[in-house]
């Protein structure tokens, strides 16, 4: 059996409410919240970035996995906010975890699906018997231009998953990937904020790939939506994943545990992985879970997991996603948020 041996997430404590962003830019808060189904989002502290978020998520994954960190043979981090243009995030994380130097490390980028990309490769490494355990992390401190619709959603957080053949808590039943060249969202080298194609990000991008991957993996695995206990879809806003789920034939209650975007925001590469982590937090042995990511550019990775008995033994060893979302958030006003996110031009 190959699957997830340990999982863990991390979300910063800072938040900004959608109301405060809307008021800053002369938008009606109620219209924005109703349109995007977003209430607030996480904000990274001034000393947090993709590397520090990855470390904390990885530590939580290790707490749930009964393994020696040194047994991890591969470490992959997917993000679109790696702190360095040239110098890997993964080496820092591996040093903190104490798993260097006998480890294969790579940083991945594919907009919001870089996290599941890392998961796909980690799973493949274990399946190919190249390593005993492989860790995959999806984490971001997402960027959104001031005043842009993305500013209501772009948030910070991430999740880590350790894949292996022993002590599995969620078996990988099937995988499927779907990708085309679609210019729906991008950020050029050196540009501070991403740009997007507005309404073009919907039907030809998000829905085409999510539905394409979702329908294909259901067909490939010969399973129907009603066979699943839960499903998680990438969450660029509140509406898109609900709509995608409905179009694939899933009911709202199947999506609810992983639909954390209204209070977390879109953690980009950490979005669907953290929704999946929140779902594992409450899943029961035998439950089937569908996970479908989406990354602009564009593509989707789909996974089907079956939860094992072992999950009951390990899930309380680390903080759960809902606990992180509800633990005394520290709310920022727009000025503090702009300072935290480096949106204010300072003297050298």
């Amino acid at each position, binding site marked *: 059996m190959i699957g997830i041996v340990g999982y863990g997430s991390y979300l*910063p404590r800072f938040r900004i409410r959608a109301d405060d962003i809307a008021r800053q830019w002369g938008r009606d808060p109620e219209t924005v919240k109703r349109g995007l189904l977003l209430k607030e989002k996480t904000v990274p502290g001034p000393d947090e970035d993709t590397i520090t978020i990855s470390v904390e998520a990885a530590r939580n994954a290790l707490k749930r996995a009964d393994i020696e960190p040194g047994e991890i043979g591969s470490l992959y981090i997917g993000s679109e906010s790696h702190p360095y243009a040239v110098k890997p995030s993964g080496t820092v994380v591996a040093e903190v975890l104490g798993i260097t130097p006998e480890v294969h490390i790579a940083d991945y980028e594919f907009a919001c699906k870089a996290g599941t990309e890392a998961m796909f490769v980690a799973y493949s490494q274990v399946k190919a018997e190249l390593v005993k355990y492989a860790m995959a992390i999806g984490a971001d401190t997402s960027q959104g231009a001031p005043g842009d619709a993305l500013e209501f959603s772009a948030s910070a957080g991430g999740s880590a998953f350790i894949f292996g053949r022993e002590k599995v808590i969620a078996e990988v039943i099937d995988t499927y990937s779907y990708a085309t060249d679609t210019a729906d969202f991008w950020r050029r080298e050196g540009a501070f904020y991403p740009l997007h194609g507005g309404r073009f990000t919907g039907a030809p991008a998000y829905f085409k790939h999510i539905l394409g991957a979702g329908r294909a993996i259901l067909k490939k695995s010969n399973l129907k939506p009603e066979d699943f206990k839960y499903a998680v879809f990438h969450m660029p806003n509140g509406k898109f994943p609900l709509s995608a789920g409905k179009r694939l034939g899933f009911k709202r209650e199947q999506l609810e545990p992983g639909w954390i975007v209204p209070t977390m925001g879109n953690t980009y590469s950490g979005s669907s992985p953290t929704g999946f982590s929140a779902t594992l937090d409450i899943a029961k042995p035998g439950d089937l879970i569908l996970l479908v990511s989406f990354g602009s550019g564009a593509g989707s990775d789909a996974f089907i997991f079956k939860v094992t008995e072992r999950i009951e033994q390990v899930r309380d060893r680390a903080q759960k996603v809902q606990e992180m979302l509800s633990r005394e958030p520290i709310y920022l006003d727009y000025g503090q948020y702009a300072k935290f996110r480096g949106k204010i031009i300072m003297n050298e």
Partner: protein
Amino acid sequence: MPTPRYTREIPQRYRLEANKCKNCGRISFPPRQICPHCGGRNFERTRLSDQGKIVTFTTIRVAPTQYSSQVPYSIAIVELNEGVRITTQVVDCKPEDLGVGKPVKIVFRKMYPEGKTGIICYGYKAVLV
């Protein structure tokens, strides 16, 4: 910080690795070449706990340039479970939240970037439990 020194100090800054004297059993952090208690020169590596409590603290209102945007912030002396004391920033809280004896957890955070083009220095900080 020069990058060779930063790289050499990774074990202590990233993983809280300390030296335990094989002669008297005392722990030195940061690791030392000679035990300050017995003069011993033989050590074993040990990793310190990520749990501790605040021994004392202060609030920084006039900060070095790299931290000027974070004022007011707190610096504390934290005693880890092994009895080792470290000086560290306490983050994700207001200065008035701190108190002597309050439990803290050690987390991995960015210390500061070296200007706009230099390396990013990482290390340990504390958060209230």
